[in-house]
């Protein structure tokens, strides 16, 4: 088949968008837009990387900081949330063997997160709104450097994402507990108790042990969704709080000095934000590893009950670790620094280590395995967290934090390696394993491109994290600029590794487009012709 024909119709014309169910279309929409936003993030990352090396003539300094502000948010919400939510809205009904509670609500989740991400990204692009670091809105608010209107639109965009996230949580829990039409009444309370880990907890203390009604990966999704819900509430509340400051500024009032205590606010905010990084991400990832390991190996999960219990521990741990973000805040009580910041945070080494071991042991029980695409990306994902979690534990130490906080070490070996290698490679593994199911048997265009994607992503991501880390250990700060080339050697190598990441992503994106064809991509966004609540076509 000619190149042009494949580009238009897809590999061997196997992908027929008109054969997709509404659920398949919904899932594919989440994934496609999530990947487009990932493209935004990679390009933004490269621009910043180059700017750190030498300021680019077409980017002003305020624009650089606006990119710096939008970059992690587009990555977290526009890319990761969309791909993860899309996959889970498909997988939870798939594993529960019943339809999604509401496809309509699923579509609203997709629309709100897509539009919300574009809104805050565009507001930042136009107005150069950049007071945030990571996701933190520092108070007191400073309006001398930023546009109030830009900020208002920016936060409205975030609010839309949060409403979409809330809809996702409702849909997940309703899907677990509801009774589909024509079914026998489902034991809603028992299902919910099983999903949240209450059944497992009770089993520890009774002789009459109840069976787990919910598969383990669904339990992981449910427990991670608790953190999504809490995080949504905190971010929404904080957004409203900042909007109060902004509306007051628009009306001519300065709320610079208010009753809101800066440190208390900082604790509140990091408690909520940490529910993402140290909560839902770790829980969702562990659950996904377990699912992938059982699907790849065809074997039951090793130490299933321990894995289930560890997910509950992880959820509770995620509510109590926020203080590791405040180890450099001298007014933070020492007891919080030691107990929450150091000791409870160290639990993540244990819970994530358990998930790592259980996944490897499950795979081991099925050897010899074929090195398939899902397996190789899963191993990459495992390696990513094995590298990034200990890096995080090191910086969550009272002594070491004094010389690591806010350096490139934090964002390099910890954040970028965790997200790019640990999380994203796990997501790629999921995409490769689900691809034939949600496309009704479409074929990947080129295995060579898959390999290019794998190696470029793995080496680029680890390499970039490593060079950022080296710069951090030599004193380079994050969210800063060095205009005299102080750290250029590290930034140059980090940029080369970033280029590998970009090549990897372009290979993947091109491969997917060639697999389903441009016609197929367009078809994903048209209304489904099959009217069914089933996940896949019945025949």
């Amino acid at each position, binding site marked *: 088949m000619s190149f042009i024909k494949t580009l238009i119709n897809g590999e061997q014309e196997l992908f027929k968008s008109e054969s997709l169910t509404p659920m398949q279309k919904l899932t594919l929409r989440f994934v496609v837009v999530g990947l487009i936003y990932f493209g935004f993030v990679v390009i933004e990352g490269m621009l910043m990387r180059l700017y750190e090396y030498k300021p680019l003539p077409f980017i002003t300094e305020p624009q650089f900081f606006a990119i710096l502000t939008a970059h992690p948010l587009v990555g977290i919400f526009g890319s990761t949330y969309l791909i993860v939510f899309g996959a889970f809205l498909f997988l939870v009904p798939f594993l529960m063997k019943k339809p999604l509670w509401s496809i309509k609500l699923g579509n609203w989740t997709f629309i709100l997160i897509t539009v919300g991400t574009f809104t805050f990204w565009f507001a930042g692009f136009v107005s150069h709104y950049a007071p945030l670091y990571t996701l933190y809105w520092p108070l007191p608010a400073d309006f001398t450097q930023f546009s109030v209107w830009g900020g208002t639109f920016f936060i409205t965009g975030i609010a839309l994402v949060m409403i979409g996230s809330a809809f996702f949580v409702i849909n997940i829990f309703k899907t677990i507990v509801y009774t589909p039409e024509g079914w026998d009444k489902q034991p809603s309370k028992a299902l919910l108790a099983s999903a949240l880990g209450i059944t497992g907890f009770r089993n520890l203390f009774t002789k009459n042990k109840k069976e787990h009604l919910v598969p383990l990966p669904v339990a992981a999704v449910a427990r991670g969704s608790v953190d999504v819900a809490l995080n949504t509430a905190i971010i929404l509340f904080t957004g409203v709080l900042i909007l109060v400051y902004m509306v007051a500024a628009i009306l001519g009032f300065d709320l610079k000095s208010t009753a809101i205590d800066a440190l208390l606010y900082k604790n509140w905010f990091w408690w909520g934000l940490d529910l993402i990084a140290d909560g839902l991400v770790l829980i969702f990832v562990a659950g996904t590893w377990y699912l992938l390991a059982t699907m790849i190996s065809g074997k039951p999960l090793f*130490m299933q009950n*321990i894995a289930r219990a560890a997910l509950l521990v992880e959820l509770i741990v995620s509510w109590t670790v926020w203080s590791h973000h405040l180890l*450099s805040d*001298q007014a933070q009580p020492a007891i919080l620094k030691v107990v929450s910041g150091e000791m409870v945070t160290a639990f993540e080494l244990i819970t994530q280590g358990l998930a790592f*071991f259980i996944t490897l042991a499950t795979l081991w029980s099925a050897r*010899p395995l074929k090195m398939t695409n899902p397996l190789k990306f899963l191993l990459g994902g495992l390696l990513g967290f094995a590298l990034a979690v200990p*890096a995080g534990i090191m910086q969550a130490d009272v002594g070491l934090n*004094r010389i690591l906080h806010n350096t490139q070490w934090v964002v390099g070996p910890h954040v970028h390696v965790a997200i790019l290698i640990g999380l994203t490679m796990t997501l790629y593994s999921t995409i490769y394993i689900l691809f034939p199911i949600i496309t009704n048997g479409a074929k990947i265009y080129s295995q060579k491109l898959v390999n290019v994607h794998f190696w470029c992503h793995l080496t680029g991501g680890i390499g970039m994290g490593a060079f950022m880390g080296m710069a951090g250990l030599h004193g380079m700060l994050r969210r800063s600029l060095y205009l005299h080339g102080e750290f250029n050697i590290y930034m140059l190598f980090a940029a080369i590794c970033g280029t590998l990441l970009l090549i990897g992503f372009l290979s993947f994106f091109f491969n997917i487009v060639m697999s389903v064809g441009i016609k197929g991509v367009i078809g994903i966004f048209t209304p489904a012709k099959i009217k069914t609540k089933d996940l896949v076509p019945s025949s």
Partner: protein
Amino acid sequence: MVDSRMVITGQTLAYTFYCIVIILLIVWFSIKVTGKGKGLSVKPAIFYTFVGFLTVLGVSLHLITYNTIPWAEMDLNRSDYNPDKTFVIKVKDHQFIMPSDKLVINVNDKVLFDVQSEDLTYGFGLFRNDNSMMFQMQVVPGHRNDLLWQFDREGVYTIRSTEYSGPKGVFMILKDVVQVIPAKATN
């Protein structure tokens, strides 16, 4: 007190060694799991040993650093110490307002840096001439931000804000304003 550069070197070596081991482990696993052989279930004893190892590692890391990183104990209990010198530094409108042009410190002095923000959240860090960091802390308005440090060698240091406070924050740098001189010079 041991210079923070020494601690960084130790950390770099430990983490690099760990990275090499874990990468080799995954490479070994990838080869073995796809190579010839029969699938065997892992013995629970190995699993529980691993859990025990992680628990010991997680707890002991902080105990070791507390007992080996010299500033850790002093930092947590700084109110129990009497500083040899105290410098009160104010921060406002993205500017450090210093008590004097230069902060002169004697080797082995315990120095308290008391930094007060009058508007936004900033950072306060001391950097060597090669741009490497000596230490840092956050500077939160409305709260006490104090850091006790003992300098064990002579040197000239630059103050820099270590927290993002908008684009203007990038330029919050006071070059070579901290001077550590021999103990004898002022005795």
